C-alpha cells in the first residue's frame, strides 16, 4: 500500500525510478528529429510503463495491474509502434521531422511544464501517500509534455505520437492510484487501440487528399476562414 512505502524502501525507489524513466523518455520524444527514432522512443516509453505497471502491481499487491501491464506492452509497446513503422514505409514519409520549435525552446518549455505540474500536484495532494503524489506529478508532466510534442510538430504522424505518449501519461496516473478499478485501465487500453485505428484511417485519407502528412496543408484548405 502506498502509505508504508516511504523514501529508501525498495518498493518506493523502484516505482519512483520507473515513473521518472517514463518522464525522461517524454523528453527524448521532444527532441527527436527523425521519425523512426521517435517511434522507437515511444515504444521504449511503453515498455518502461509496462515495467512500472507490473512493479506497482507487486508493490500495491494488486494482481490486476499485471494485466494492465500486459495490455500496455501488447498495444502501446508492440502493435502500435510496428503499425507506425509500417505506415512510414507504406506512405514513404519523410524521415526527418519538421518541427515548429527549436530544440532549446522546446526543452526549456518542457522543464517549465514539469515544474508546473510539481507545483500544482504536490501541494494539493498532502493527504495522499507520497508514492501516489509523486506518481501523479510525474504523470501530469508526461501528459503536458505530450501536449508540447503535439503543438511543436507539424506532421500528422508526429502529432499522433504526441497524443499516444499523452495517453501513456494517463496510464501512469491510473496505475499510481491505489485501488483504481481494472475497468478504467482496460477501457483506456481499448480506447488507445481504437483511437490509433482511427488515426491510421486518417493517415491514408490525408495522404490521398493532400499528398502529404504535413498538417500545414490542412490550414490551407481554409475552412476556418469561412
Amino acid at each position, binding site marked *: 500500500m502506498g502509505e508504508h512505502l516511504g523514501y529508501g524502501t525498495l518498493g518506493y525507489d523502484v516505482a519512483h525510478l520507473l515513473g521518472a524513466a517514463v518522464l525522461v523518455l517524454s523528453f527524448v520524444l521532444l527532441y527527436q528529429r527523425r521519425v523512426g527514432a521517435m517511434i522507437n522512443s515511444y515504444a521504449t516509453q511503453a515498455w518502461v510503463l509496462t515495467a512500472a505497471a507490473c512493479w506497482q502491481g507487486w508493490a500495491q499487491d494488486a494482481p490486476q495491474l499485471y494485466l494492465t501491464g500486459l495490455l500496455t506492452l501488447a498495444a502501446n509497446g508492440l502493435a502500435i509502434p510496428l503499425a507506425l513503422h509500417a505506415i512510414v514505409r507504406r506512405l514513404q514519409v519523410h524521415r526527418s521531422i519538421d518541427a515548429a520549435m527549436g530544440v532549446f525552446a522546446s526543452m526549456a518549455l518542457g522543464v517549465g511544464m514539469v515544474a508546473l505540474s510539481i507545483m500544482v500536484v504536490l501541494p494539493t495532494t498532502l493527504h495522499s501517500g507520497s508514492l501516489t503524489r509523486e506518481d501523479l506529478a510525474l504523470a501530469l508532466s508526461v501528459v503536458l509534455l505530450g*501536449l508540447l510534442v503535439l503543438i511543436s510538430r507539424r506532421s*500528422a504522424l508526429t502529432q499522433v505520437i504526441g497524443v499516444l505518449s*499523452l495517453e501513456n501519461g494517463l496510464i501512469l496516473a491510473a496505475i499510481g492510484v491505489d485501488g*483504481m*478499478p481494472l475497468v478504467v485501465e482496460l477501457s483506456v487500453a481499448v*480506447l488507445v487501440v481504437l483511437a490509433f485505428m482511427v488515426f491510421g484511417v486518417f493517415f491514408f485519407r*490525408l495522404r490521398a487528399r493532400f499528398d502529404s502528412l504535413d498538417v500545414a496543408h490542412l490550414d490551407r484548405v481554409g*475552412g476556418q476562414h469561412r
Partner: protein
Amino acid sequence: MSPGMLAELLSATGAVVLLPVLAAAVLAMLDNRVIAGWLNIAAATATFALACLLPWHMAAGTLLLVDPLAAHMAILTSFVAMTTAWFSLPYIATEAASGRLEPRRVRHYHALFQAFVAAMLMALLSNNLGVTWVSIEAATIAAVLVVGLPRTAEAVEASWKYFMLCGVGISLAFFGTIVLTLAVLPVVGAGPDSALAAMRWSALPTAASHAAAPLLNLAFVFLLVGYGTKAGLAPLHAWLPDAHAEGPTPVAAVLSGSILNVALVVILRLRGVMDANPAAMAPGPPIIVLGLLSVLLAAFSLWRRRDVKRFFAFSTIEQSGVAAFAFGLGGPLASFAGLLHLTLHTLAKAAVFQCIGHACQAKGSQLFSEIGGLLAGHRALALTLAAGIIAVAALPPFGLFTSEFLIVTATMQQQPLLAVPLAIGLVVGGWTLGWRLITLCVGPATPDTGPARGPLVLLPVWLHLALVAVLGLAMPGTLVAWFATVAGSLR
C-alpha cells in the same frame, strides 16, 4: 463484469443503451441501403419509446443511474436521434446519388449513427464517472468517423481537428477523473469494490463532502476544461464549427443538440459534487466565466461567417454558453431556466439544421452567397426555416424567449453586473440571426441545382418547432412540475 451489472444492462433501463448497440452491429453488416435507412428509423424510434419509460424506472445501480436529470436528457437525446433518423433517409439518398457520399460509406454512416447514439445514452445513464468518460470518448470517436465520411478535403480537416482537440480535452478530463477518485477513495474506505463505489455519481456528493478540498479543486479544474471542450465552450471550441460544417448535416443536428448536452450534464453534476464540500472552491464562477466568454466570442464571430452551417455552429456555441452561464449561476430559478434553455435549444437547433440540410442540397452549396431567396422557389422550406431561426434567436412566441428571459432575470437578481455583457451577447447574436434570416429567405432567388422535395420531408422539423412553441406559449402543468423536479434534483 459482475452478474449484478449484467442484470442491470438487461433491464428496461439497459435496453435503452443496448438497442442502439445491437442496431449498430446489424447495420454494420447490412448492405441494402433502403432497408438500412428504414432499420435505422425503426431502431431510433424504438429507443425513444423505451427512453420515455425511464421516469418510471428511477433507480441508482452499480452501472446505471436513472434520476430525473438522466431520464430527461435521455428522452431528449433519443427524441432528436429519432427525428434525425427520419430526416436522414431522404438526405443520405440524395448525398449518395450526387456522389458526395460513396455507396459503401452509407453503410458506415448508419452503423456509426447508432453507435454514436448508444454511446451518448450510455454516458447520460451511467452511474460511474469512469464509464461516463469512456462513453463520451466512444461517442467522440464515432462522431469523428461520421464527420470524415464525405470525400472532401474539408471533411478530413474537420475530423482531424475534432479528434485532436477533443482527444486532448478528454485526456485532461481523464486525469481529472483519476484525481477525483483519489480524493474520495479515503472517504469510502477500503474494500474490494471501494473504488467502484467511489466513482458512483449517486454517491459522489456525499463522499465529496468529507474529501480533501485541494484534491477536489485540482480534479474540478481538469474536469471542467476537459468536458468544457466537449461542450464547445470557449476557448476550446475550435473543433465545433468545422465538425458541424463539414460532416453530413444530420450529424450536425445531433452533434449540436446532444453531445454538447452530455458534456454540460457532466459539468452540472460536477457542480453538485463541488457544492457538497464547503471547503472546496466555488464551482459557479469558473463555469460562469467560460459560459460568458463563449456567448460573447460566438456572438461577435457570427457577423463574419459566410458558410451557413458554420454560422449556425457558432450560434450553438453561443447557446451552449448561455446554458453553462445559467448552470454556473445556480439557484432554483437559474437551474430551471438553464435546463429549459438546453432542452429548447436542442429541439430548435436540430430543426434549423434539418432545414439547412434541405436548403444546401437544393442549392448545391453551403455558402450564404449562393443560398438566397428561398421564399421564391421553396415556400414551405423558407417559412419553416424562418420559424426555426426566430426560435433560435429567442424571439416570441417560441420557448427560448421564456428561458432566456428567465436567465437574464436570474442574473439581475444574483449578479446584476454580469447581466450587461450577457445581454450584449444575446442582442448581438439575435440581431445577426435576424439579418441572416432575411438574406436566406427574401430577395432574388439563387439558381437551384439539387432536387426539389415536397413539404412532407419537413414533418420532423414541424414536430420540433411545435414542441418549442408549445413550451413557450403554454407549458402544461405536468411539464412545469417535471422541469422543477429535474432542476430540484440538481441541488
